């Protein structure tokens, strides 16, 4: 049995006060904070003590919103002075896709490396747009022993970037006749890339590259991001090269395990040259996730490409479309087209754009991806608030432009990915699936709101209820 994949998580506290969700307010005066049943003293999270300490040490006036919303103080205060409130700043955090809740939980995971728990139950709606209209079916009865998934049971989360040779050809003496190129396997089904138009600097790149090395994954890197400081991490970098100028980058190609090329109609022509420079190199082609995505995939799958990297926009929407489809539908589309053309098993599909949570990774794989590429969560691990002030040339509220400590930054990403990995094996454990590769395209383990609605309400309400979410 291979050595168990382990992610070394270690608490890495935030540098700035995170924008918390809840606080309690004391809306009545009737308290001196020292009665017999004082809930301020009983708070198991010590919120009130922390508040006092914070008031003494803060630079600018600000309030702590780090209540865990257990309602104990609201319920037990004999004078009934408390009410729970939501942080007004929290309400403005993020957008429709990168929701405040998502960002807050990513911060928590980067801090602790633990699976986020929602406390007093899940309070939100059970269906929403995007990935939230798809549910994973975890009712598998033959699930493995629960204590085992983090212990003796081994659930593999690996995926490959290198292409598969099918079928294998054997000689008369049963020795292998096919030329098998090296297998490039990544132990966790995700790769990194830096987000577009957010703050990226040397310390951020080094942190991410180092985290990729610790995790055993790889980071796609654009030419403008590359600096010599990244040289020690070359094994874990996937340089993004212009297809027409590969001869300018011979050294980079020879020292890399994989490269990424942007899609063009004749991109495949360069594969031979690339392989001549480095026979074992894995070739990834970066394709916009638009109306042409599936047909381009089918066309490329017939060539010598290893992996197709489809990129959607920041919110996971189809590119260049008036009514864009969401990434999960797009993954299905590309995946099924390749299946129809009998080429799916030869190559790998990875998707980027809008992957914000561990469940998005699992759901993308269920839809048919081999792995995903994450971008914004890397910066969120460094406390980025997605306020996009940097895009307007304004200062960063968490001072990312000043750089970060790479050791801390790297640990934050490792923690985040540790939490994502735990969630992935938790989901797979509950489904009875032992291999991330087996999860690929396994839509039988998912339920789709649109289908269920049509199936259940369609016969009663007809077209009125078949419109899906709206």
């Amino acid at each position: 049995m291979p050595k168990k994949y382990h992610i070394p998580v270690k608490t890495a506290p935030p540098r700035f006060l995170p924008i918390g969700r809840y606080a309690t307010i004391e809306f009545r005066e009737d308290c001196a904070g020292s009665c017999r049943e004082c809930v301020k003293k009983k708070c198991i999270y010590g919120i009130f003590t922390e508040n006092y300490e914070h008031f003494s040490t803060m630079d600018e006036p600000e309030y702590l919103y780090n209540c865990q919303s257990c309602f104990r103080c609201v319920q037990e205060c004999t004078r009934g002075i408390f009410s729970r409130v939501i942080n007004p700043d929290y309400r403005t955090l993020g957008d429709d896709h990168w929701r405040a809740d998502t960002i807050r939980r990513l911060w928590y995971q980067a801090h602790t490396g633990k699976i986020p728990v929602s406390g007093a139950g899940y309070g939100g709606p059970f269906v929403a747009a995007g990935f939230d209209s798809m549910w994973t079916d975890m009712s598998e009865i033959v699930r493995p022993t629960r204590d085992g998934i983090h212990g003796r049971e081994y659930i593999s989360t690996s995926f490959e970037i290198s292409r598969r040779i099918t079928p294998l050809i054997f000689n008369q003496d049963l020795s292998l006749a096919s030329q098998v190129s090296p297998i490039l396997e990544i132990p966790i089904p995700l790769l990194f890339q830096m987000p577009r138009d957010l703050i990226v600097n040397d310390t951020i790149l080094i942190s991410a590259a180092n985290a990729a090395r610790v995790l055993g994954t790889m980071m796609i890197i654009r030419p403008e991001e590359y600096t010599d400081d990244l040289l020690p991490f070359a094994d874990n970098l996937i340089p993004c090269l212009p297809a027409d100028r590969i001869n300018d980058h011979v050294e980079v190609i020879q020292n890399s395990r994989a490269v990424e090329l942007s899609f063009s109609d004749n991109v495949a022509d360069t594969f031979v040259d690339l392989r001549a420079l480095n026979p074992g190199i894995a070739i990834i082609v970066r394709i916009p996730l638009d109306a042409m995505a599936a047909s381009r995939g089918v066309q490329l799958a017939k060539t010598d490409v290893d992996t197709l990297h489809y990129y959607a926009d920041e919110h996971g929407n189809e590119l260049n479309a008036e009514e864009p489809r969401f990434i999960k539908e797009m993954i299905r589309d590309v995946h099924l087209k390749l299946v129809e053309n009998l080429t799916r098993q030869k190559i790998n599909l990875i998707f980027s754009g809008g992957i914000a949570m561990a469940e998005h990774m699992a759901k993308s794989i269920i839809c048919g991806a081999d792995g995903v590429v994450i971008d914004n969560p890397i910066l969120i691990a460094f406390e980025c608030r997605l306020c996009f002030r940097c895009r307007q040339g304004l200062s960063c509220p968490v001072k990312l432009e000043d750089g970060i400590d790479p050791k801390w930054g790297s640990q934050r990403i490792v923690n985040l990915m540790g939490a994502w990995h735990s969630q992935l094996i938790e989901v797979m454990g509950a489904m009875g699936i032992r291999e991330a590769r087996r999860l690929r395209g396994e839509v039988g383990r998912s339920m789709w709101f649109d289908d269920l609605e049509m199936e259940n309400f369609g016969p009663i309400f007809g077209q009125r209820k078949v419109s899906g979410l709206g």
Partner: protein
Amino acid sequence: MEPNYKPKIALFHCINSFNEGLFLPLNGRVDVALNVIRLACSSMIKDIVLLKAFEAGADAVLVMVCPEGQCRYVEGNIRAKKRTQWVKSLLDEIGLDGRRLSISHMSLQDTDAPEQIIQETLAVLNDLGPNPAV
């Protein structure tokens, strides 16, 4: 007063007393540095937080709360008023001048009021000068 003096004002306001959209133009001002602290209810105003604003260098502190009798938590704005008055007397006592701190009841309909209050505060600051404890 120094020619390059740009007053720093900390503004505490209850989110129920203020329409964020109408308030936005104030954020881009060049004549004053505004630090806006949004509160879920004005009952969150505590003496210490007001004083901390002055410690952080504010020349004036404004508190904007809901009209009397219209607090979502019934007593929140009354508490805020009492505490603000207490801190005003403290400021007088330590020689910082209580006029640097003011509380106003805002109604959502009165869209001109914030600007007017800031102008009044600037006039007061013109008289008082910068925070002497910076």
